[in-house]
């Protein structure tokens, strides 16, 4: 029996977000979100970060603007999102239709020993995103809502922000390649074709 009040499990959430991913482009924030995305299957259309904390949402913006026909999904942690929370203002103003930001909110800095983040004290990231002007912005607590979010990401009808409340569990690391040149080159080759190798 599943308890409807139980917190979601992060790997279930990410597996569902990446189900039938088609040509979705995925940016993963450093730490556990990177391992979750990699656990769902290493893929050339993933750009998993191993550092540059705070970069995920803005890499998503630059990519979404450069590739308006493709759908971009950023999957990151609450700590990573908070490190560049101002980017929600920047992104709201640019309003790319093809960008979805999914924050896996365990209310912890998981990677560094499970210290509490501001969301543990009630800081409402979805409300911040709404106040910035991202109209489709929500807190997600059920798998049905995760499925809706997955569909929204594929529809590309406006910038989407979701703060997904998840269990603060520490799981086994599943790592993608760590070499940034490999990650960059295979992503560009996959998205832009072999020409990417020549310029």
């Amino acid at each position: 029996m599943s308890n409807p009040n139980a917190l979601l499990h992060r790997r279930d959430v990410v597996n569902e977000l990446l189900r039938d991913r088609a040509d979705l482009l995925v940016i993963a924030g450093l730490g556990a979100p990177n391992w979750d995305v990699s656990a769902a299957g290493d893929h050339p259309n993933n750009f998993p970060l191993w550092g540059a904390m705070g970069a995920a949402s803005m890499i998503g913006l630059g990519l979404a603007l450069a590739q308006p026909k493709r759908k971009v999904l950023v999957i990151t942690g609450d700590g990573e999102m908070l490190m560049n929370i101002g980017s929600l203002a920047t992104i709201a103003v640019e309003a790319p239709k093809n960008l979805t930001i999914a924050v896996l909110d365990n209310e912890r800095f998981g990677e560094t020993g499970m210290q509490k983040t501001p969301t543990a004290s009630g800081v409402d990231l979805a409300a911040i995103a709404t106040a910035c002007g991202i109209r489709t912005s929500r807190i997600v607590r059920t798998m049905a809502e995760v499925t809706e979010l997955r569909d929204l990401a594929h529809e590309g009808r406006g910038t989407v922000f979701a703060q997904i409340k998840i269990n603060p569990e520490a799981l086994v690391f599943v790592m993608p390649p760590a070499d940034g040149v490999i990650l960059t080159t295979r992503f560009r080759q996959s998205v832009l074709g072999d020409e990417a190798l020549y310029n």
Partner: protein
Amino acid sequence: MAEAAKSRAEAAPALPTWPDEIYRVLKDAGIRQVAMVPDAGHSRLIRSFEADPETRVVTLTTEEEGVAMLAGAWLGGERGVLLLQSSGVGNCINMLSLPVICHMPLLMIVTMRGDWGEFNPWQIPMGQGTRPSLEAMGVIVNKVDEPDLVASTVQGAANLAFNTWKPVAVLVGQRVLGAKNFKELARK
């Protein structure tokens, strides 16, 4: 009337041409995304890009956002430029890990403060720290102090960045920009 207009024209300092020159250079380099936190020294260039339907000008809340955004642009096959004041370089330091370790191009055009003729003591620490902190992170730095050399310096930096996948910063010195003195302005 004509006399008055003439003497006004003589009295007004000639507008610098380098912002228009680097606009052309950046267009020729294929720049599509312009990320910036404004500085007075960049205002003319920013206006040119804003008037250009082919370029997207994105106003950042902090300069490090621009480093990440232009990494995303590169992943998606677009070229960009980051326009910032020297103080904003300090906001970028850890984010520079991204283009450095991923061998991505990054073109930064930095207008200097705390450099030559500065009046504001608070600009000195980061102004003097701009070059060493960029270099400590592995960014190639080209400084220009002559208005006539700004365009060719930016052109060389763009070629270097996009052909060799390196982060490159052009520092435009206060000798080019002209040092303001707010104390004088306050007395007027």
